[in-house]
Structure formats: structure tokens, C-alpha cells
């Protein structure tokens, strides 16, 4: 986000410091409800896949000066795309257009933009944490402190004593049966090697 025009990381910016300052997020970047030129570029080059990182890329790109534009690895380091890479992002930052118009009857094989694109570049697409589920519980997976071990005993009493903890699930609560988390046409492609909660940690 931009605070008084200066780009900062919103996850590191204490909200109390925003008092009395102008805060701009990707939702308000364009101002008039249209698209900021950088948002348009990210649409034109489809500079995203899932779009989770797009708000950060758009807001950072919108704050770059000419010198920073000349050294994108330095200017955009810290903006991480986990889906695909930076080719499409760079195309967007540099203003390339890679999408093609959708012409009825000729859409197959054409480079059509993602339908969610306008929502992604304006920060209005809903992701998991944007969805309000009343009464939702959060699950904390406890990872093994050992590289490989068998659980011989497990005592959940300390965890159950933590305020707000509703339940603790261990391998005692899940079937011993193994299954596969992937399924293909041939079921033998994916061996049944997974237990939901295992007594072997690794």
C-alpha cells in the first residue's frame, strides 16, 4: 500500500501509524473506479496466474521511478509469484499486450484473458481469507520435531488447556486405512500411501 504516496508493506505497517495519513490500496489506486494504467497493463499482459501476488506487484510498479524501471530485479525483489514466474509480470510492467480479443467462432486457440482478471487487478477477487464463514474454526497442524519417528504416546492435555482450543485430533481419530490424494484414470498410478493422521512422522 502507499502511505502518503510512499510504498510500504502493509503486513509490517502498524495500523495505529496510519492515523492522519493518506492510505492507498490497490482497491483505490485508480481513484475514479476505473483502472490505473498499471492495472490496465497487468490485464493486457495477463501478468498473473492465481493473482494472489498481483496487488503487491501493481502497487509496487505504480510507485517505481524511471531509474527503478531500468533495474526490475532490484526494484521488484521481495514481490514473489509462486505460480509461474516473472515473464508475464515483466511483460506487464513493460507495457506489452499479449491478450487477443475474443471473436465468436475464433476463440479456440486465441490468447484470451482470464475472466477474473479485472477483479484480480483491482483487489476485488475473493480469496480464502476474504470469505466470512461465521463460527469457522482454524486448524493448526503440529509438525514433527523429528526427521522420522513413530508416535508411541501422545498427550493432548496441554493443547486442550489453551483457551479457545475446541479439539485435538491425533492418529487415534482417523482410520488406519491408507489412501491416495491423487486419482487418475488408472487407479494404480497413485499408490494408496497416505494416512490422514499417521502414527509415523517424517
Amino acid at each position, binding site marked *: 500500500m502507499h502511505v502518503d504516496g510512499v510504498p510500504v508493506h502493509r503486513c509490517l505497517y502498524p495500523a495505529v501509524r496510519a492515523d492522519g495519513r493518506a492510505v492507498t490500496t490497490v482497491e483505490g489506486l485508480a481513484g475514479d473506479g476505473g483502472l490505473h494504467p498499471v492495472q490496465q497493463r497487468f490485464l493486457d499482459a495477463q501478468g498473473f496466474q492465481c493473482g494472489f501476488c498481483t496487488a503487491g506487484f501493481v502497487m509496487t510498479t505504480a510507485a517505481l521511478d524511471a531509474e527503478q524501471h531500468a533495474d526490475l530485479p532490484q526494484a*521488484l525483489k*521481495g*514481490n514473489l509469484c509462486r505460480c509461474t514466474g516473472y515473464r508475464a509480470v515483466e511483460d506487464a510492467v513493460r507495457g506489452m499486450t499479449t491478450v487477443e480479443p475474443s471473436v465468436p467462432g475464433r476463440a479456440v486457440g486465441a490468447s484470451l484473458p482470464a475472466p477474473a482478471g479485472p477483479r484480480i487487478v483491482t483487489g476485488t477477487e475473493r480469496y480464502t481469507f476474504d470469505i466470512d464463514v461465521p463460527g469457522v474454526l482454524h486448524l493448526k497442524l503440529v509438525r514433527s520435531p523429528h526427521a522420522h519417528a513413530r508416535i508411541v504416546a501422545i498427550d493432548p492435555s496441554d493443547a486442550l488447556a489453551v483457551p479457545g482450543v475446541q479439539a485435538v485430533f491425533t492418529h487415534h481419530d482417523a482410520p488406519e486405512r491408507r489412501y491416495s490424494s491423487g486419482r487418475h484414470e488408472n487407479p494404480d498410478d497413485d499408490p494408496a500411501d497416505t494416512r490422514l493422521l499417521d502414527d509415523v512422522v517424517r
Partner: protein
Amino acid sequence: MDLHTVREWTDVRDAGAWRPGDAWVAGGTSLFSAPAPHLRRLVDLGRTGWEPLVEHGDGRLEIAATCTVARIAAYPVALFGQCCRAFLASFKIWNMATVGGNLCAALPAGPMIALTAALDGECLLLGTDGTTRTLPVTAFVVGAGRTALREGELLRSVTLAAVPSRTAFRQASLSTLGRSAALLVGTRDDTGATALTVTAATPRPLHVRFSAPPTAADVREALGDAVWFDDLHGDPAGGGISPSGSPRRSDRSSRRERLRRRGPVHELLRADQRRGPGRRAAPGAVPADLPARARLLRGQEGLRRR
């Protein structure tokens, strides 16, 4: 990230006495990047109005603890910008992170430590009883994630000596634009007196002086049995530096401060030796015969007049 155990946020001017569970907040970029369940109250230095940079008449520069890295990056001395670009962090972090925060985090790769140690920085510390003391940066940072700060003591500023006529900067990193594995700053005055500051490869800044520019052998001898920091990317078992760059709380100094003779600094020294005495790489050039790791060096412009 949210710090769920914090109950109170107060301006330093209203904070009153220091309490257990207090922490100073300057930029907050380190504080808000890792859990800190021992904290109860954050004492904000953000509205102190401390002048970020005060140039004294004798050439000394006083940097407020709250001066942002962005201000340092914009300072018209090449070494300042070079040290800022040695951060793993993005330029957006520079807009909030402070010089004082980087010193107090005391990470081996903290480039503000390198900058201020190289320029003979003196830290001004304010005690809870109203007394003040000064410490050289090289005595302020005492280990990986450890400083000489006493409980409740506040780093107010660091004052640098006049910038020598020539400075040099070398960084080795395991990845392009990555965190420093070794960061060396050289300074040389008009008499030829030379100082070399080693950080990142050592748990605390090392500062060695020479009456004339040293050879690689001179430097190796001066560094002697320096303790090398070989935990650049953190020990997943719990020691060292976490991936977020924050020091783990458990102190496994015996593991992470092992004596290592073949650290990144020695790669740099070997590289200089191969280049040979009297030969200096052309600006921007990376000699092709250097080991791969040494070729990751940045700042190849050599000793540059500022």
C-alpha cells in the same frame, strides 16, 4: 503480522518507566516479521521528531536511530547506497526500516552495521536512569542477534567519522541480490591509512586497520583466528537466523560460531590474490578465472573516488 500478546501501544514521550515486556518500535519491519510472545507493550519512537541526519561542522555525521534506510540510500556518498543495496529487503522496506533497528537486530548481514562500523560509528545510548554512554559500533554488536544494550536502554543515534577520501565495497552472496554471505568495506585516507571492516561472514563486525593498503596475506594475518559465521540461511533445527532474518531465541553459539577458516571472506581474499598485486579489475569487469562464488561479487567498481 499481528503480535497477539501486545496489549498497549504508547508514544515514547508518554511511556513513563520501562517495564518488562516493553519493546521499542522504530520502523517495525523486524519486529512485525516474527512472533514475539514475550512482548506486552510497544513504545513508539516514530513521532520523536529526531532529525534523521545531522552534519556536524567537522565532517562527522550523526544518524538518528530512527533515520530510515531510504534516507541513507539517498545520501550522496557512494558507500551509503552500496550498503543499502546489500539488504536482502526490498526498497519498500527501506522506506520504514531504520538504521537503529538494523543495528539493534544485530544480524551478521546487517549492512547498516557494516556502514557504521566502517566509518568508526559511535553509538549514543540512553539509559533508563537518564544517563548516557557511548560505544563504538564494533562494541555495540557483540554477536549474532546480540548487542551490548542493557534492559530498557535506548539507541539514540550513531555518529560517523568524516568519510575518508576513498571507500570500497564488496559483497558475496549465495544468490543474486541475496543476503550477504560476506560484506567487506574498505576505507583509505589521504595518508594511505586503510581500514577493512568485515561483516556478514562474522557474527559481529570486525574492523582492522593498516598503515598502508594491505595485501591479502596481511589481511589474513590481521583477521587471524576470526570466528566465522557459517549459518547464512539459518539452521532449521533451531539455531542461527530464521528464514525471515530474525535471530532465533535459542543461543547455540557453539554450533553457529564455529571456527571456520574457509569462509566467504577467504574466497574474497583468494580472489584478490589471483588478481595479483598491482592489477585491478577494470570497473564493472568480473575476471573470468575467479571461483564461481567469488564471481557473485557485486560492487566490482573497485576503489572509487567519491
